[in-house]
């Protein structure tokens, strides 16, 4: 992948090529959001977690973003159940080929 190639080249240029398969702060920063959304393969997730455990700064960063995500999900507004019920009944009448607006 050309992106990886360029990245490797830049990291070499700046002398930050990781010795092992460990990720550095920049790599983790670039992937953090995808990681938190669960859009990343298990192998890369493992390497990110390794870094988050070792690096306090990135660990804190991840914690903050996780907190934001969890809070937003927790404050998902209720959809009124009676609204869902009405719409379902409406849909069922449609499916039966009836006039949907008259129960």
């Amino acid at each position: 992948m050309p992106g990886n190639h360029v990245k490797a080249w830049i990291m070499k240029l700046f002398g930050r090529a990781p010795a092992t398969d460990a990720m550095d702060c920049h790599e983790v920063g670039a992937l953090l959001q995808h990681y938190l959304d669960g859009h990343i393969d298990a192998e890369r997730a493992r390497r990110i977690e390794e870094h988050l455990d070792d690096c306090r700064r990135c660990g804190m960063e991840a914690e903050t973003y996780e907190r934001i995500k969890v809070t937003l999900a927790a404050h998902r507004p209720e959809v009124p159940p009676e609204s869902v019920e009405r719409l379902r009944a409406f849909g069922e009448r449609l499916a039966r080929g009836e006039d949907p607006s008259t129960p």
Partner: protein
Amino acid sequence: MQRPATGDTAFERFVLPEIEVLLRVANSLTRNHAEAEDLVQDTLIRAYRGIDGFDGRHPRAWLLTILRNTHINRNRRRRPELLRDPDAAFDRLAAAPSDDEADATVDHELDVEIVRALDELDDRFRRVIELVDVDGLSYAEAAEVLAVPVGTVMSRLHRARSRIRDRLDRAGLAPRSHM
């Protein structure tokens, strides 16, 4: 156009199970329960008319596209006075019963700040957060609703989150490292 009442029409199989998700997204788009219900109703009618041409793949994405187009059409027909109420989400949260524990108070403060930060985002950033983080849509589904490429959803989402994060930081509520 009589259809058999077998409970196994394509419409029943693909559309009815998505009603709750549609209503959630409609709420995010309209910020008004009655309006959202009407929007989903119109969406169901359009989906019913279009079901014969639907190939059965990705029903949610297909329905979200219909929902988005229906929303645009409905807005064209009305005065743009139905603006979102920026305080609604905050009021809902502020009214949440607070816990006795000190921890809960700090948590509550943080929650309030997060929701406030969300409400203060520009529309295009706020929408994407609402669809993905609040409504639980995938990037691709949010892209359908917003009619933008998936890459745009991701970049807006990431920028939006970092704005919220910066705000927590300024309020002294973000966890800090002491290095």
